[in-house]
C-alpha cells in the first residue's frame, strides 16, 4: 500500500523500466531463436545472422524511443 502511495502520480520511472524490459525480452527471444537456427543449420549462418540482427534492432528500437520520450514526460510531470 505504501509502495503504491509512493508511486502515486509518478508512474513514469516505472514505465521506463517496462520499456527496457520489453526491449530486453524481444532481443533475448531473437537471439535465442537465432542461436537455435544456427545450431540446426550452420550453413545458413549469414542469412540467419542478418535476420536476427534486424529483429533485434527493431525490438531494441522501441526501448530506445522510450528512452527519449520518457525524460520529456518526466520533466513535464514534475
Amino acid at each position, binding site marked *: 500500500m505504501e509502495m503504491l502511495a509512493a508511486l502515486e502520480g509518478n508512474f513514469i520511472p516505472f514505465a521506463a523500466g517496462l520499456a527496457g524490459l520489453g526491449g530486453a525480452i524481444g532481443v533475448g527471444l531473437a537471439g535465442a531463436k537465432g542461436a537455435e537456427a544456427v545450431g540446426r543449420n550452420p550453413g545458413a549462418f549469414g*542469412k540467419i545472422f*542478418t535476420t536476427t540482427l534486424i529483429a*533485434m534492432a527493431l525490438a531494441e*528500437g522501441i526501448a*530506445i*524511443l522510450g528512452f527519449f520520450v520518457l525524460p520529456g514526460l518526466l520533466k513535464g510531470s514534475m
Partner: protein
Amino acid sequence: MFVSRFIAIGLLFFALAVPALAKEAGGGGHEGDDHEGHSVTPNAVELFKIGPLPVTNSMVYTWIIMGVIFLAVRAGTKRMSDKPSGMQNLIEAAVEGLEDMTAGMLEPKVVRWCFPLVATFFLFIVVSNLMGLLPGVGSITYNGHPIFRPPTADANTTIAMAGVFFIASTWWAVKYNGVGGLIKHIFGVKGGMTGLVVIPLFFIFIFIGLIEVMSILIRPVALAMRLYGNIYGGESVLTLMLHTQPFGLAALPFYFMELLVACVQALVFTILCIAFIGTLCSHNEEEGAH
C-alpha cells in the same frame, strides 16, 4: 563507382553542417552550461564559431575521423599490387565483405545504386564508434567542455545520415518502380487474387498501405535515434563507471561491451538501410506467383 562514393561522402559532410545551422537558428543548446563534472551532455557542446557557423566538439572529431579514413585509404591505394597485403588487404576485405552482404539482400541493379552509400555509412560509423573509445575522447577539456566527442554520439550526425538515407531510398524507390508503380507497390492488392474478392480487399489494402506509409516515415527517426541512443548511452555508462569507482576498474567489462556495440550498431544501421531499400525496390508479387 569511385566517383559516386566521393559524392556520398561529400553529401554526408554537407549534411553535417545543416543541422548545426538549424540548431543555431533555434537559439537552444544552452543545456550544456549546467552539466556536472561526471556526466556526458546529451547535446554536443559548441566550442567556437567560424563566421555564422558554430563548431561543436563532435564536428571537430568528425573532421579528425574523416582525415583518418582519408589517410588510411590513401595508404592502402598508393602502391597497389595483385597480391594485396597490409592496408590494401584490409580495405579490400572490408569493401568486398560489404559488397557480398549487400548483394545477398538486394537485386544486382539496386546493389549498384545503393552500395556506395551503404558502405560509406558502415565505414564511417564503425570508425567513429571505435575511435570514440580511444583514451582522451571526452577527458581532454577546453573551457570545461570536452573537445572531442564521437560524432555518432551526437544526434545531429545520426539524423543527418538518416535523412540522407531517407531521401536516397525514396529516390531509388521512384527510380525502380516509377511513381505509379510505387503507389501500387504500397497500396495495391497483393496475393494474386482475381474476381469480385478484390473489391472488399481493395479497401483493406488501402488501410494497410496507410500503415505502411507511416512505417516508412518512422524508419529514419528510429534509425537515427537507435544509433545515437546506443552510442551516447554507452559513452555515459563509461564516464559514470570511470568516475565513481576506485581506479575506474568497473569500466573494464563495459569497454568490452562497447567494443561489441560499436561494431554491431554500425552493422545494424547498414543492414537496416539495406533491408528498408529492399522492401521498396523488389518485385515480391512476381516471386509469390510461382
